[in-house]
């Protein structure tokens, strides 16, 4: 099938992926870390609910794929990816006790996310061979789809100047931008790994649909959970309208930009290097307080 369109990577200098030893001092971060806008803050806070378990799961799955990789360069990238994801998971996990201290215990929600990634998407008792490989490939493809969105969000947060203007907490912004920048930095790895070990287009579409639906379901649920359990009186409720309007103001990714990213991932010539800028990510990482010792 020589006339099938192929993924078209954008040439960029290859960089070595390394985990960074980050640290963040949370004691001064308030619950409403975007002043006067609890909804936006809580919508972004959903990341702290999903990522600790989710990125632990990435690491768990990728450790199983490593022996299947035959390309040395890709193996190096995947190993770097694993280290970075482990740090992301730990850094978001360390925000949760702070939220609890501020009066919003996230455990009822995170225990469900733990179940989702540890049980539902965990290692199933399958016979070795085709069934086991099928389940591994489904998960590898799902991670590639999720990484499309983490790169999208990473690129967004790096450029979300509105949050700075609205006085968002600098430590929280630094956590999000360090994470976002590393997502942009390693955005090609998950997709290249999927193309290397499987690459089936039908699987790509199927797992994208599952991942997108699950993310939308979990996200609205998380935002509602935070708004409903916020100890501050009269914070209001989460709604699709509020989400749309926050997107228009540049406080959250805009709904049209999110819709436009869907056909991009499903395009046969998609390659993650077409999105975002490694140079911008690396520049942020060089100046991030959290990634440079946390001062």
């Amino acid at each position, binding site marked *: 099938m020589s006339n099938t369109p192929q993924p078209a990577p954008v040439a960029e200098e290859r960089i070595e992926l390394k*985990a960074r*030893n980050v640290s963040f*001092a949370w004691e001064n971060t308030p619950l409403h870390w975007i002043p006067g806008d609890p909804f936006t803050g809580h919508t972004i806070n959903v990341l702290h609910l999903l990522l*600790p378990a989710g990125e632990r799961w990435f690491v768990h799955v990728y450790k199983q794929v490593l022996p299947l990789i035959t390309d040395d360069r890709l193996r190096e990238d995947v190993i770097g990816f*694993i280290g970075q994801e482990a740090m992301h998971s730990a850094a978001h996990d360390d925000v949760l006790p702070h939220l609890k201290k501020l009066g919003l215990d996230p455990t009822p929600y*995170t225990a469900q996310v733990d179940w989702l990634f540890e049980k539902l998407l965990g290692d199933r008792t399958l016979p070795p061979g085709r069934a086991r490989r099928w389940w591994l490939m489904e998960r590898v493809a799902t991670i590639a789809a999720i990484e499309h969105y983490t790169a999208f969000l990473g690129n967004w947060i790096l450029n979300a100047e509105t949050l700075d203007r609205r006085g968002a907490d600098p430590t929280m912004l630094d956590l999000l931008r360090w994470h976002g920048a590393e997502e942009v930095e390693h955005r090609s790895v998950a997709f290249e790994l999927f193309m290397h070990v499987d690459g089936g287009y039908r699987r790509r579409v199927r797992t994208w649909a599952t991942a997108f639906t699950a993310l939308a379901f979990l996200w609205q649920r998380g935002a509602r959970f935070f708004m409903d359990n916020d100890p501050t009186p009269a914070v209001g409720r989460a709604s699709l309208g509020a989400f749309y309007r926050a997107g228009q103001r540049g406080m959250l990714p805009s709904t049209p930009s999110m819709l436009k990213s869907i056909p991009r991932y499903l395009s046969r010539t998609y390659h993650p290097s077409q999105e975002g800028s490694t140079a911008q990510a690396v520049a942020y990482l060089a100046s991030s307080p959290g990634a440079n010792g946390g001062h």
Partner: protein
Amino acid sequence: MRRATTVALAAGAALLARRALRRRIGASPLWPMPALEEPVSGHGTRRSTVALRLTVTERAGPAEGVVRLRLAAPDRSELPAWEPGAHLDLVLPSGLVRQYSLCGDPADRTAYTVATRLVEGGRGGSREVHEQLREGVELSVRGPRNRFPLVPSASYVFIAGGIGITPILPMIKAVEASGTPWRLLYGGRSRATMPFLDEIVGLGGTGESGGTERLGGKVTVVPEDESGTPDLVAFLGASPADAAVYCCGPEPLMDAVGVALGPGRTPYLERFAPGAATAGAGFEVELRRSGRTLPVPADRSLLSVLRTEVPGVTYSCEQGFCGTCQQRVLEGEIDHRDELLTPAERDGSMLICVSRCLGKKLVLDL
């Protein structure tokens, strides 16, 4: 007409379903997903990425070339508890991260005390502490963590070299308070350069025993310019054979303590530069599942040896903070040199990028 009926029916069913769902969710907002019985997220004890922002509230010079800093939260709130032997990671203004032992009083929960010696021609950390950390300067701090804890023992022997006294000082106070017998050998270049000397001699009660020739007192002070290098063999020989031996000081001193103790006894050591994956003795590693045994030379890390032999071995930071290279250990005494694992995790696993072996052989589940 039939079409209109179908649409009406479908709309009615949809409305009913929506109402039922809303009622169900109203009764239990997080329906319908099950939860993991023992939640993992947010319940870990590693806390590896959390920093504290502290201010230098006091700066003093307890000895020549040594500064002592008191660090407290800007609002003087209570700080996490620690036990003797613990250290802090100080994130210096330039971004350098250095470990310093806590040498204050664990019961004082409003401040941490550390002391550092200026190392001429060092890696720059101590110079920065001495030149930049004035009173009022704010810095990030990670920890406290304890890789050098006091184990229960009938008696203790402490050997400190110069600034290596810092973790030993709170240990001695704790041991003295509990009434357990102890002895200290404190060496240094000269009395003027040895911090906390008066405090320690005071702790010794009856006064110092004054040099290596007399071994009766609790505290033996050996300034090199007066008494030469300490006679470790004589000092250890005069101590009970079952005493726990703790040593912190320059690398040659710690090596000498290991030699003087002889085979069969291992001292508890605190290195100034933790994370140095290649400082230490060589050992053997057995890979139980693949049935191979490989030598790990003194100048190579366990990870670097395994990487050439086991293609699937994962790692990333190679400095002991990301946890990617954690491996299960089946047998052998682990020399943990990472900053990440919790005491429970240290029991049966290690980070192969920095940690080594205290004995001759480790058995890994690989």
